[in-house]
C-alpha cells in the first residue's frame, strides 16, 4: 500500500517545478510528489493568467470578439481567429470567396510552421541545447516578416474577419513565401543534424512519457499528442473546412507513443505544411478577398459550432445566440487543456529528470489552457 503511486506517505518530497520550460515561469504551477527520484504524482495548478476571455466575449460584438481570441493561443493566433470567423459565418450562412479561402489556408499553414518551429527550439532548450533555439527563431522570423507585411502585425494579427480576410495579400507576398520555402528546404536538414540524430537527445526522448492510444482518446488529447500515439485526429482531414478537402497532404501518424514520436510528428507536419503551401502559392484565385457583410452583424437565434486544427490540436468554438449583436454565451474547446490533463499519466512512475522532456512534447501554451 505504501508503494502505491499517487498517495503521499511519510518521507515523500513535495516540490514546485520551474522555471524550466518557458511555461513554468509562474503561469503554470506544477506540484510534484516525489519518492526519491520517482514521480508519484503531478498536480498542475492553473488560474495564474485567467482573464475570463469567454465571459468578456459576451459583451463584445461578433466583429470584436474574434480579435480577442488571438490572445488565447498566441502562437496559433490566425487559426484561432479562423475558427471563430467560421463559426460566425456558419450563423450568417455566408459564402466565402475562393480567394479568401486560399489566403486563409496559406496563413494557417504558415502559422503552423512558425508555431512548430518555436516549439522545436524551446524543446531543445528544455533539454539543455541552446543553439537550436536561435536557429528556430531565424526561420520563424522570416514567417513573421511575411505576416507583418500582409497583416500588419507579427503575433496578434486580427486578419481573419467574418466573410474573408481584412486586406488583400501584399504584392510581395507570393515572392516572399517562395523565398521562404527555398530557405526552409535548405535548412531543414540542419534540424536533423543538430537535434534529431543526437545521441543525448534520443536517449532522453525515447521511451519517455509513454501514453497508449486508448489513453490518448480517453483524455481527449488532439493534435500531435494524439497522432504521436497513432490516433488519427486531424480536423483538416476528418471535418475539412475551406479548401482542405481539395488539397494533397498526409496526416502524419507515428506509433511510438513516446516523446520522440511526438517530436517526429511535429517535424514531419512542418513538411506537410510546406507541401500545402507549395500547392497553393501559385494558384491563388482572382476575385474578392471579403464577402459583403453588414456593418453590424446579427446572428440568428440558435447554437453554432465550428472547429479548426491549430498547431496544438482541435479548437472548437461554440456560440449560443439570442439573436442580438453580441453572443449570449461562448465556449472554447481548447486543445491545450485536454493535452495537459494527460501530463500526470505521462510522467507518473518515471524519473523527475524526464518530466521536462515529457511536458515539453505536449507543447503547452498557457493562455490556451487557462483562458
Amino acid at each position, binding site marked *: 500500500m505504501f508503494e502505491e503511486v499517487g498517495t503521499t506517505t511519510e518521507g515523500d518530497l513535495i516540490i514546485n517545478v520551474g522555471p524550466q520550460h518557458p511555461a513554468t515561469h509562474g503561469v503554470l504551477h506544477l506540484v510534484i510528489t516525489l519518492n526519491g527520484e520517482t514521480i508519484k504524482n503531478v498536480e498542475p495548478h492553473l488560474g495564474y493568467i485567467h482573464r475570463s476571455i469567454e465571459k468578456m466575449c459576451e459583451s*463584445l460584438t461578433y*466583429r*470584436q*470578439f474574434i*480579435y*480577442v481570441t488571438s490572445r488565447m493561443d498566441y502562437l496559433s493566433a490566425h487559426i484561432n481567429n479562423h475558427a471563430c470567423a467560421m463559426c460566425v459565418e456558419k450563423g450568417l450562412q455566408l459564402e466565402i470567396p475562393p480567394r479568401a479561402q486560399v489566403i486563409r489556408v496559406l496563413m494557417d499553414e504558415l502559422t503552423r510552421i512558425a508555431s512548430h518551429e518555436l516549439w522545436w527550439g524551446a524543446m531543445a532548450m528544455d533539454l539543455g541545447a541552446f*543553439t537550436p533555439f536561435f536557429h528556430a527563431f*531565424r526561420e520563424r*522570423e522570416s514567417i513573421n516578416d511575411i505576416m*507583418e*507585411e*500582409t*497583416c*500588419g*502585425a507579427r503575433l*496578434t494579427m*486580427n486578419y481573419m*474577419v467574418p466573410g474573408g480576410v*481584412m*486586406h488583400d495579400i*501584399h504584392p510581395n507576398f507570393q515572392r516572399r513565401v517562395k523565398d521562404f520555402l527555398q530557405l526552409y528546404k535548405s535548412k531543414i536538414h*540542419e534540424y536533423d*543534424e*543538430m537535434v534529431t*540524430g*543526437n*545521441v*543525448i537527445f534520443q536517449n532522453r526522448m525515447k521511451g519517455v512519457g509513454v501514453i497508449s492510444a486508448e489513453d490518448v482518446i480517453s483524455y481527449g488529447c488532439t493534435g500531435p499528442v494524439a497522432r504521436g500515439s497513432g490516433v488519427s485526429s486531424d480536423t483538416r482531414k476528418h471535418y475539412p473546412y475551406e479548401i482542405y478537402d481539395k488539397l494533397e497532404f498526409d496526416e502524419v501518424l507515428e506509433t511510438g507513443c513516446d516523446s520522440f514520436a511526438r517530436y517526429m510528428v511535429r517535424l514531419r507536419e512542418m513538411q506537410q505544411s510546406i507541401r500545402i503551401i507549395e500547392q497553393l502559392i501559385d494558384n491563388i484565385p482572382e476575385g474578392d478577398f471579403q464577402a459583403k457583410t453588414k*456593418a453590424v452583424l446579427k446572428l440568428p437565434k440558435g447554437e453554432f459550432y465550428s472547429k479548426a486544427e491549430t498547431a496544438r490540436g482541435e479548437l472548437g468554438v461554440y456560440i449560443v445566440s439570442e439573436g442580438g449583436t453580441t453572443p449570449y454565451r461562448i465556449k472554447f474547446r481548447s486543445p491545450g487543456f485536454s493535452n495537459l490533463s494527460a501530463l500526470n499519466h505521462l510522467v507518473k512512475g518515471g524519473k523527475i529528470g524526464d518530466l521536462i522532456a515529457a511536458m515539453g512534447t505536449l507543447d503547452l501554451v498557457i493562455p490556451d489552457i487557462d483562458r
Partner: protein
Amino acid sequence: MFLKQYIKDVWGAMKSLATGMKRTGYYFTHHKEIITEQYPDNRDTLVLPERFKGEVVMIHDENNEHACTGCTACELACPNATIKIITKFDVDAETGKKKKAIDTFVYHLELCTMCNLCVEACPTGAIKMAQTFEHSVFDRSQLTKTLNKPGSKIREGVE
C-alpha cells in the same frame, strides 16, 4: 561483450557530437549567412512595412484639414473604449445653420490593441495606422493623445 558495447556507445556519441559541431563550424566560417539585426543601432535603416499597425493617427492635409465628421463609428467599433469623440456644433457663416462637427478626438494609446477595427469602420477614411513603435514614456498621461491637430477643421465636401 560489455566492453564492446561500451566502446560502441562512446564512438556513437563522439560521432553525433561531431555532426552537431559541424554546423557550428559551418556558421563560424560562413558569417555572411548570419542574419542577426543589431536593433537599436540600425534605427536609421529600419523600415517598417506600410501596413504595420503602430498607432492610430488622423490624416491631415497641407491646409490642416481632415475628413472626420464626428460620426463616432470608430468609437463604437473599438472593443476596449480606446477612442472618445467629443463633438460640438459649428454655425455655418452663410446659412446660420448649426452643424455637428468634431471638437476633440481623444485616443488612449495605452488601451489600444492595434486591431485596426476603427480604421475599417471609418466611412470617410479619416484615420489610419501609423508605423511608429517604441511608445514607452515615463508618464502614463502622455499616452492619451488628441488626434485632431489644433486649429484643424473638416475638409469641404466631406459628409
